């Protein structure tokens, strides 16, 4: 058990590519932090820097009380779960789990006890004598988890561990990993590009873009108050609609917009914050033409074209309305559901 402190971490590759720039992050003992961002945002690089698989170009990294910048991966007291599981194909499941313990000189009895405990916890006890290729994707995932567990490390590092699983299994493993992590209360750093995984699993969420932190916060914080237009567009599906403030000012009653800061020239509206108009509901009213109705079972996504707006807007309704494409529809939105941004800097203004 340990906290992890990143102090101004930089990663510059030979050739000058800057993968990670100036990361400051304090991870409390037992906390589950999810690093999320698009491909190439530096999230995996950052994780690998913590693991010791990439060198740290600048800054200091603490795990617990120790500065670990120059320690080998084996000496950092961490365990990692890889995207492709990285199970040793020529060893049985038992030996896969035992390998790290053997290397550290644990006694045979202790190895046996720990492996069996982990196997029981992950329900892979029946497969201990099998080779990895004889296991299904979900079982391999469990073995990879088991290999991390048996070591009882100070921190778990997860590098997109669920992205090779099918959708159903992914949801199931997501729940299991989170439950396990809560039960063991082991500090965890989890990398994913899947925003749903990020929102559901994190104690705190770190949104990365271009090697920098865009926002850190609890999932609901990040969702309800995105700090930048990037976060607003990345977290939430469908993505947040962005309208020029001028468009709203020209079409809406001015007192509805009075609370918005002058600097805000871009207004974000979540698709689910727009409601089909019923009188007396909401503050602002928008009318557009329905381009496409996408029914998605319990909900539906409406793509609308608004006069004078270049981009289409997406609206999410908790039901499938009986409307036809081409029809003009009016929507309302409450004024505290408007997210004001400065279009030039991309930052939220308050």
């Amino acid at each position, binding site marked *: 058990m340990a906290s992890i402190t990143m102090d101004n971490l930089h990663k510059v590759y030979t050739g000058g590519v800057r993968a990670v720039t100036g990361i400051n992050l304090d991870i409390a003992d037992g906390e589950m932090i999810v690093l999320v961002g698009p491909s190439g945002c530096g999230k995996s690089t950052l994780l690998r820097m913590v*693991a*010791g698989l990439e060198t740290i170009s600048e800054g200091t990294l603490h795990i617990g009380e120790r500065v670990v910048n120059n320690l080998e*991966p084996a000496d950092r007291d961490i365990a990692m779960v*890889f995207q492709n599981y990285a199970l040793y*194909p*020529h060893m049985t499941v038992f030996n896969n789990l035992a390998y*790290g313990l053997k*290397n*550290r000189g644990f006694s045979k009895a202790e190895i046996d006890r720990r492996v069996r405990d982990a196997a029981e916890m992950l329900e892979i006890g029946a497969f201990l004598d099998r080779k990895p290729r004889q296991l299904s994707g979900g079982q391999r995932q469990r073995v990879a988890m088991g290999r991390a567990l048996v070591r009882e490390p100070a921190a778990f590092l997860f590098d997109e561990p669920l992205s090779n699983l099918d959708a159903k299994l992914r949801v199931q493993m997501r729940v299991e990993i989170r439950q396990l992590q809560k039960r063991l209360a082991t500090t965890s750093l989890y990398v994913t590009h899947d925003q749903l995984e990020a929102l559901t699993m994190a104690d705190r969420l770190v949104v990365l873009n271009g090697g920098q932190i865009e926002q850190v916060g609890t999932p609901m914080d990040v969702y309800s108050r995105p700090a930048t237009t990037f976060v607003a567009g990345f977290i939430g599906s469908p993505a947040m609609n962005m309208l020029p403030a001028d468009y709203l000012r020209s079409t809406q009653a001015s007192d509805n917009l009075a609370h918005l800061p002058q600097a805000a020239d871009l207004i974000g509206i979540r698709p689910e914050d727009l409601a089909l108009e019923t009188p007396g509901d909401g503050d602002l009213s928008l009318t557009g033409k329905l381009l496409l109705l996408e029914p998605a079972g319990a909900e539906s996504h409406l793509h609308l074209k608004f006069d004078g707006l270049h981009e289409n807007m997406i609206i999410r309704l908790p039901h499938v309305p009986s409307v036809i494409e081409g029809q003009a529809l009016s929507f309302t939105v409450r004024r505290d559901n408007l997210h004001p941004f400065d279009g030039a800097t991309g930052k939220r203004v308050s």
Partner: protein
Amino acid sequence: MQTKRMTFSSKWLPYALLAPQVIITVIFFIWPASQALYQSVLRQDIFGLRTEFVGLDNFVRLLNDPLYLNSLNVTFWFSVGTTFLSMSVALLFAVMVNRMIRSRDTYTTFLVWPYAVAPAIAGVLWWFIFNPSIGIMPYMLKGFGYDWNHRSSSTDAMILVIIAAAWKQISYNFLFFLAGLQSIPQSLIEAAAIDGASRMKRFWTIVFPLLSPITFFLMVVNVVYAMFDTFGVIHATTEGGPAQATNILVYKVYRDGFVNLNLGSSAAQSVILMGIVIILTVIQFRYIERRVNY
């Protein structure tokens, strides 16, 4: 189930298409092989005037001939030495080259070149390097107090032919080992590093076992090479000497048949060699298909 069946417009076309391969096989394998089988049960008198049928007597004589048994022994050590030397050096090179990033292709190209050198040329090359009177190696070894002479010392001769034969094969082995190393996912090595395995331990417990299918394949290929493709090397360096010390089976077939003109014995020896090739081929197909390790 639908069977894929080609239909030809002419009845003769399929035969014509197969003909080149069949003709080559008949002329260069079936014919000489049956000649060898036939010859191996015959014996000529010294002047080549009479030929008589002797059954398996040629084989019986061979297996009781101390020179032939010596040749078997020499071939065994020569194959083992060549295979081990060429494979271990190749593996070492492959591991080193695999660690490079930008210069990898350049090194690979240079390391593959020796493979293009003909066996006889390789033999001459090493003959010069190790020549007791003008060679650079004996000169250097003298500095260490070792008097190299592969013309009189059978150990020196054996070392020379092993080096000359292995040198050429290193390139081939290197390519396979490098490809094998590159197909091992980096994350396995990283996982092992996190699991606390030292560099050496990672190599012997993760990398080497994962290379085992390639190692096994190369072992068979190298043994076959050492036994059958090294005629040129031997011929250009030691010619089987001194005192039969490097007279491997293939070379002995040639010496007995074409120099000493004992056709019956020579044919019997090639039949035995054919048997060995068949066994090695069976081993290769049997086990390679089955992926040795995992």
